[in-house]
């Protein structure tokens, strides 16, 4: 007899769920609302003056755990916008095949040049389609950007953030020499 009662109870629960709104999001036709910090694909951006923001400092290439970013610096040349001499990028490629979306490259970018996108990247039919060349990265600039940029993330992680006065207990910070920058491994 207990079986019948329990069965009836389970059936009531399932019937109650019939009248709840389905939670499915019909993906290609309707888009889920994605929060501000959502991160998917990558883009390279221009700074406020309209110049390429990337200064080819190699920070993203060094920190990438999957080692998928390749930066080729072009050396110093005069900026067409401001006229100052600065470093430029010759090529930057990003292989999304092995990206683990850790956001470390965005975090270390000193000029907020490399950012992630909020918009879903389109699926591709080939592995080459996931390979982001510099042209594609700059073309992605037009898509919706994620909240995170190097400056914002660094600001959020600032150890003095929200504290009333600076505290002098920073002796644990190992500033040290960056071994990888020196080529040691």
């Amino acid at each position, binding site marked *: 007899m207990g079986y019948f009662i329990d069965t009836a109870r389970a059936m009531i629960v399932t019937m109650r769920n019939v009248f709840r709104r*389905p939670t*499915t999001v019909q993906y290609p036709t309707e888009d889920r609302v994605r929060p501000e910090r959502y991160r998917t694909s990558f883009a390279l951006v221009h700074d406020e003056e309209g110049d390429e923001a990337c200064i080819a400092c190699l920070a993203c290439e060094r920190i990438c755990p999957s080692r998928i970013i390749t930066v080729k610096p072009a050396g110093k040349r005069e900026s067409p916008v401001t006229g100052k001499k600065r470093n430029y990028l010759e090529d930057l490629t990003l292989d999304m095949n092995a990206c683990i979306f850790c956001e470390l490259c965005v975090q270390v970018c000193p000029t907020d040049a490399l950012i992630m996108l909020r918009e879903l990247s389109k699926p591709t039919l080939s592995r080459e389609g996931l390979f982001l060349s510099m042209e594609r990265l700059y073309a992605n600039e037009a898509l919706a950007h994620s909240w995170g940029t190097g400056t914002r993330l660094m600001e959020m992680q600032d150890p003095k953030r929200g504290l009333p006065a600076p505290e002098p207990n920073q002796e644990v910070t190992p500033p040290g020499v960056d071994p990888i920058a020196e080529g040691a491994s």
Partner: protein
Amino acid sequence: MTPMIHGLVWGLIIGTVLVTVAALSIWFERKFAARIQSRYGPTLVGPAGILQIVADALKMMQKEDIIPEKADPILFRLAPPCTVIFTLTTAAVIPFDENVLAADLDIGVLFLLAVGGLVVFPVWIAGWASNNKYALLGAMRAVAQGIAYEIPLVLSAMVPVVLAQSMRLSDIVSVQAQTHWFAFWPLGPGLIAFAIFFICSLAEANRIPFDIPEAESELVAGVTTEYAGMRFGLLQMAEYLHTLIASAVAAAIFFGGWDGPFAPGLHWMVLKTLVLFFMIFWIRWSLVRFRSDQLMALCWKYLLPLSLLLVMASALFVHYRAMET
């Protein structure tokens, strides 16, 4: 019209309708299950995805016809059509209306149960011929379950037979139309007999909570593990047909068949069948399954003695009612 032509014509019509309803029921079940689970179910093919079943059938027909190298080729091919044929044959004696039935056999209930019981054989054949351990385990479970539950099924079906004092299905229905539906009269035994009949039908049709022979999570897909394409489709079809016919039989022998006010008899029969059919779906998407030994315990320890008692009780009821009048 000779009985033979009558049977052929109505058999063809009923068979076609049943297969169509079974096919549509797959669509309905998918939609219903989806709503239970907060999903939408098929939406793309046709309005509300109603043509999904056509798409599925086309897909299954296009699939490569795989027969495993080590399988027994003849038996492997034989099993899926056999399940559908045996299942569909039982539909011959179900009265949908006073005249809407293929063969009004005077041993209707016996025929129904005998042919329905045959379905165990193709399932065992399928499991054996696949030459796969999961299929074999599934077939072993199916046979054990099928044989065990056949007995309370037959005994609970005997209750209406005893009450109507006829094995002819149309007689059983007309007696109910004249008196009361057997599920509610005599109140106790009829309802319990219906419950037993319903449970055993679920077990015979391998529906949750008795889908132990398939048991995806344990036996991959049980007897159907090695089947692909339309052969698999036939096995699935047989399962749905079995469920549908079991609902129709239950509606006929316990719920008065075509008996009902206002509307023509056929409507009532179809309605009752579909309500029972819907109940089966509902139960399926609400419960987890038994373990095979618990299933056996349920059958031999509870259902069998209870159904024996019910047959006796209904016989006594008929006896004393006859003495009163």
